[in-house]
C-alpha cells in the first residue's frame, strides 16, 4: 500500500513562527530514508536541516529556496510506494486549502513555559506531552531550556517531558547561594516536588549531566534512568579556556570564538545565537552566577567532580560527539553504561545530531 506523506515547516523553539528555505539537499525523484536531511531552513534564531520523519521518494518540492513560510506550512511531498501526479496535486491542494486556518489558531493557543516560586526561588520550565514516567531535560553551563528545541517536541510524543532553566540561567532567578552542583540538583528536585513527580527519567547535557548524576546520588529513588550527553563528571579533562573565554566574553567578538568551540558545524553559530547569548549575559546576576558555576565545575583544565561511581546504581545511557572540543569523547569509554559516540558532532550533540539523539533517548527511556 502506498502512503503519501507531507513534510512541513518544523517549529524549533518557542519563538519560531516562520522559517526561510535555504536550499534543497535532496532532489525530486530521490529516495529518502527516515532521518535523512532533506532541506536547510533558516530562522531568525538558528539555521539547521529538516530531517525526514518518514521514508519515501521525494516527489514534490513545494517550497522554493528563499521562500519564507509559516511553521506547519507544506515543504514537500514524499511518497512511499506508487502515486500519480494527480494524486499528489490533490494532496497539495487540500493541504494548502486547509492550512491557513489551522496556523492562526495554533499560534494563539500553543503551549508556553511556566514560571513559579519553587523551593524559594523563581524557576521557569516548559512541559510538553503527557503520560508515562516523565522525562526531565537539564541543559548545560550557560544554556537554557531552548537547548532542547530540536528534541523536546519529538521526545514528548511518548511521555510528559519537562525542560527547565537551571538557577542562574534562562528566565529562572539568577542569584545563586553557593553556586555548586548541590544547589542546582536541589532546584531540579524542588521542581519534581512542585510538579508531584516521584520518579523521573533524567537527561542532562554537559554540566546538566553532572546535575543529574548528583541528583541521582542525593535521591536515587527519584531517578528511573540517566541519559548523559557530553556530560561533566565522567572524567578529568575539560576545556578550561572555553569556560574562561565564555565567562569573560562581553561582546560579540569575544563570544564568537568561545561559542564556535561548541559546534563541529560552524554554520550553527549564527549572528542571532551570539546576540541572544549576549542578551543573557547582560542580565543582572548572570555574570556572578556563571563565575561561581565555572569555578564549581573546573579548576583550570581539570574537572572537580568525578561522579562515575553513581552510574552503576541505575540504567545509564552515555552519548557523545566525536568532535567535542569541550569535554573529550574518550570519557564515554570505560563507564558502566550503554555508550554511543556520534561521528562528526561537537559538544552541542542534541542540536547537531538531533534526530539520532532523539531516537537513542526514546529507545533507551522506553526500555526503563
Amino acid at each position, binding site marked *: 500500500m502506498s502512503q503519501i506523506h507531507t513534510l512541513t515547516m518544523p517549529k524549533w523553539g*518557542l519563538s519560531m513562527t516562520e522559517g526561510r528555505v535555504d536550499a534543497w539537499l535532496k532532489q525530486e525523484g530521490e529516495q529518502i530514508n527516515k532521518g535523512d536531511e532533506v532541506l536547510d531552513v533558516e530562522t531568525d534564531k538558528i539555521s539547521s536541516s529538516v530531517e525526514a520523519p518518514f521514508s519515501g521518494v521525494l516527489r514534490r518540492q513545494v517550497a522554493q529556496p528563499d521562500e519564507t513560510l509559516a511553521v506547519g506550512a507544506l515543504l514537500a511531498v514524499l511518497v512511499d510506494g506508487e502515486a500519480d501526479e494527480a494524486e499528489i496535486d490533490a494532496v497539495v491542494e487540500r493541504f494548502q486549502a486547509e492550512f491557513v486556518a489551522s496556523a492562526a489558531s495554533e499560534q494563539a493557543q500553543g503551549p*508556553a513555559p511556566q514560571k513559579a516560586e519553587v523551593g524559594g526561588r523563581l524557576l521557569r520550565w516548559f512541559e510538553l506531552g503527557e503520560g508515562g514516567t516523565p522525562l526531565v531535560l537539564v541543559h548545560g553551563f550557560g544554556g537554557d531550556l531552548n537547548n532542547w528545541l530540536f528534541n523536546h517536541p519529538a521526545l514528548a510524543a511518548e511521555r510528559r517531558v519537562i525542560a527547565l532553566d537551571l538557577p542562574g540561567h534562562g528566565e529562572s532567578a*539568577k542569584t545563586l547561594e553557593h553556586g555548586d552542583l548541590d544547589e542546582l540538583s536541589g532546584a531540579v528536585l524542588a521542581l519534581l516536588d512542585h510538579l508531584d513527580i516521584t520518579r523521573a527519567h533524567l537527561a542532562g547535557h554537559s554540566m546538566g549531566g553532572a546535575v543529574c548524576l548528583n541528583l541521582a546520588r542525593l535521591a536515587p529513588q527519584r531517578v528511573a534512568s540517566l541519559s548523559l550527553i557530553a556530560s561533566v563528571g565522567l572524567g578529568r579533562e575539560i576545556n578550561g579556556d572555553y569556560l574562561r573565554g565564555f565567562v569573560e566574553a562581553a561582546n560579540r567578538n569575544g563570544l564568537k570564538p568561545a561559542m564556535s568551540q561548541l559546534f563541529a558545524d560552524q554554520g550553527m553559530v549564527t*549572528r542571532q545565537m551570539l546576540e541572544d547569548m549576549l*542578551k543573557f549575559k*547582560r542580565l*543582572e*546576576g548572570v555574570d556572578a552566577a556563571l563565575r561561581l558555576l565555572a569555578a564549581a565545575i573546573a579548576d583550570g583544565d581539570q574537572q572537580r567532580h568525578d561522579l562515575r561511581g553513581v552510574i552503576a546504581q541505575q540504567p545509564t545511557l552515555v552519548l557523545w560527539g566525536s568532535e567535542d572540543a569541550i569535554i573529550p569523547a574518550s570519557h564515554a569509554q570505560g563507564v558502566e553504561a550503554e555508550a554511543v559516540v556520534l561521528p562528526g558532532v561537537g559538544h552541542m550533540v542534541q542540536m547537531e545530531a538531533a534526530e539520532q539523539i532523539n531516537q537513542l533517548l526514546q529507545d533507551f527511556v522506553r526500555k526503563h
Partner: protein
Amino acid sequence: MARKISYQQAINEALAQEMRRDSTVFIIGEDVAGGAGAPGEQDAWGGVLGVTKGLYHQFPGRVLDAPLSEIGYVGAAVGAATQGLRPVCELMFVDFAGCCLDQILNQAAKFRYMFGGKAVTPLVMRTMVGAGLRAAAQHSQMLTSLWTHIPGLKVVCPSSPYDAKGLLIQAIRDNDPVIFCEHKLLYSMQGEVPEELYTVPFGEANYLRDGDDITLVTYGRMVHLAMEAANNLARQGIDCEVLDLRTTSPLDEDSILESVEKTGRLVVIDEANPRCSLATDISALVAQKAFAALKGPIEMVTAPHTPVPFSDALEDLYIPDAAKIEAAVRKVMDASRSAA
C-alpha cells in the same frame, strides 16, 4: 518567549527599576508629573508624551515638575549630580538645548576634567529627537552631532525597546553626564524586553545584519530604514552589513573599521544635518584608517542642510528613506564595479 513592550514603556520601566534599586535616582523636568502648579492633577501628564507616567505615585517626592526654565532645572540637576544624587532630567525637545547649553557644555561636561578627576557628574539628560511628527523646525531636529562634538559628554540614541531599557540603565549608573536621545517616532515601537534589569554597554555597536558587500553604519530611527533597504537589496543580490552605533560618544570605531575592512564599501546614514555630523565624522574615520580596504567611494545619506520643513510633503522629502539608502548603495556598488 520574552514579553513585548513599547520603546516608551521600556524607558519607563528602566526609570522605575533604577529608582527602586537606588534611592539617589530622581526625575526632574517640565510636566514630568502633572505640570507645575496644577494641584489635583499630579500625574496628569507624565511627560509631554506620557513617558514618565505612573512614576509620580510610585516614588513620592522623586518626580519633580520644574518651572519652564531649562537653564534653571538643568542647572539644578547638574548641581545635584555633583553632590551625590543621580538625576534624570528631561529636556522635552532637544531643540531647546540652547536654553540650557551652558549648564551642559561648560559645567557638566567639564567638571571631571577641570577638577583632575576628583569630581563626577552622574547626570542623565533624556531628550526627544528627530523629525516626522509634523512638529516644524523648532521641535524636530536631530542634534546628536551637537552633543557628540563636546568632550566630556556621552551620547546615546537607542533604536529599539531592548536597547532603550539597557542603555538607559547603563546611563543612570554611569558617572559621567549622558545625553540620552529618544526618537519620538520610535516611542510606540514594540519589541522583546526582559523584565529583569540589564545593561547594554556604551561604545559597542550592534550588528543587525551580517553581509559581505557593503557596510551601512547608522543609529536611532534610521536603523530601521537601513534594514528595510538591506532587505530589499538582498533580493537584488547585494549583501549589506548593518551596524547600529547605539552610542555616538563613545563611538565604536573598531566595529566600523572591522566591517569596512571586510566589505570594502561604506554608506553612512544619519538623520541629522550633514555639516560636521556623524556622517562626515565616520566617513573621515574610514577614509583615514581603512582607505586601503575601500573598493569604492563612501556615500552619505543625510537630511539636507536646511531646517526641518513644516509642510508634510517637504518634511517627507527632508528625512532620509529606504529608497535613498538603496540608491546610495547602488551608486557605491556601480562606482566600485567600474573601477575594478
